[in-house]
């Protein structure tokens, strides 16, 4: 089995792992992580296809390689947007439902993990 085939199968497995995490994980942040794993698998498949198309003195077909670079940037943008949405959602949930769950008193009050914020400048 060639290295390209080996990594091609790995890409397929990564897609399966990422998809499973994306669908089953209840925590949105973990879904975002799984999305990135899934993306990693997709990009790796492009890489394998590029490698198989090595010709003309290039180690790989540059077209899929360029596509992967574009794809990685798009994936990062997606992650950033999803994380921002998630953070705001949590803030908003904590603001509107302060009585729910434990000792949350209203907006951005200090909790045990808050010691590392504040201070600074």
């Amino acid at each position: 089995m060639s290295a390209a085939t080996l990594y091609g199968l790995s890409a397929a497995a990564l897609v399966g792992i990422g998809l499973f995490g994306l669908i089953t994980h209840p925590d949105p942040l973990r879904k975002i992580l799984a999305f990135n794993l899934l993306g990693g698998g997709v990009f790796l498949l492009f890489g394998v296809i590029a490698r198989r198309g090595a010709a003309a003195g290039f180690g790989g077909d540059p077209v899929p390689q360029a596509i992967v670079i574009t794809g990685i940037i798009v994936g990062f943008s997606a992650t950033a947007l999803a994380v921002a949405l998630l953070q705001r959602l949590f803030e908003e949930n904590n603001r509107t439902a302060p009585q729910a769950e434990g000792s949350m008193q209203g907006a951005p009050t200090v909790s045990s993990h808050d010691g590392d914020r504040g201070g600074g400048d």
Partner: protein
Amino acid sequence: MIVAGAFDLALAVTVLAVATWCVSVRATFAAVVAFVAFGLLVAVVWVRLAAVDVALTEVAIQGGIVGVLLLGATASLRRYKAAVAERSGATQRLAVAVFCAVVFLALATAVLTLPDPAPTLAPPVAASLLAFGLGNPVTGVLLGYRAIDTLLETVVLLLALIGVWSISPDRSWGGRPLPMHSAGRADALVYFARLLPPVGIVIGVYIVWVGADAPGGKFQGGTILAAMWMLVMMAGLRNPPSVARSGLRLLLVAGPAFFFIVGLAGLAISGGFLAYPAPYAKPIILLIELVLTPSVAVTLGLLVAGPPVRDARQ
């Protein structure tokens, strides 16, 4: 040959193991750390697949900046006792697992039945790369043959940032993103943040510059520049800028807008959108890369910094 094969096998197994761990481990923090490790390992895979350009991007984005973003999110979300949605039932998870296994098998079959010899565009790219005068075929594809993808991609980045900003509450508009630094003043970090950026900026610009002929380019170099900026912000030497500043917005838009203008100039001069007049192709491409770099770097940094908040206006 055997050594290389064993290495590939070990690498592939490690990548899959780390990915599995990332999905299955309970603690979110551990999962994020696993993901960063995953990004670095996959970068090695890219080198093994002879795609150094991609390896650079992978390290910079997946291993680096996504890691920073997700670690920051983990830290800030930990403050909230989220109403954790209940885990889906065992049967449901089993059904999903079966579905994912089917997807895996279908993909594996497809991978094994890919045609041999593989179709490739490498020869035509090589044949006409001279038209651009570039030595790096990936840059030739990104800014030449498929320049429109790259053009739209810079808009994607910008729109993602607009999306992130739009998530801020009304009262915060005109404020700055939350400061990135924590834990008072860490002297070692402050020292590092003064020491490293001059070196980092040189390296970032070098990677953009060399991208025409060797692995590199605006995204890789821009990420390094963004990282330097973020380091300075994390050390508390600078705060993130206010989203209302017109200078900042101009900087964000300058890169993509310049790319569009070059494209339209091509329409007027060379008879085609994004067509470059032959003798000047390489300088034009380099110019586009250099103008795009600051916009890309600032956009990436601000995407990590997140939406503006009110109390940071000060």
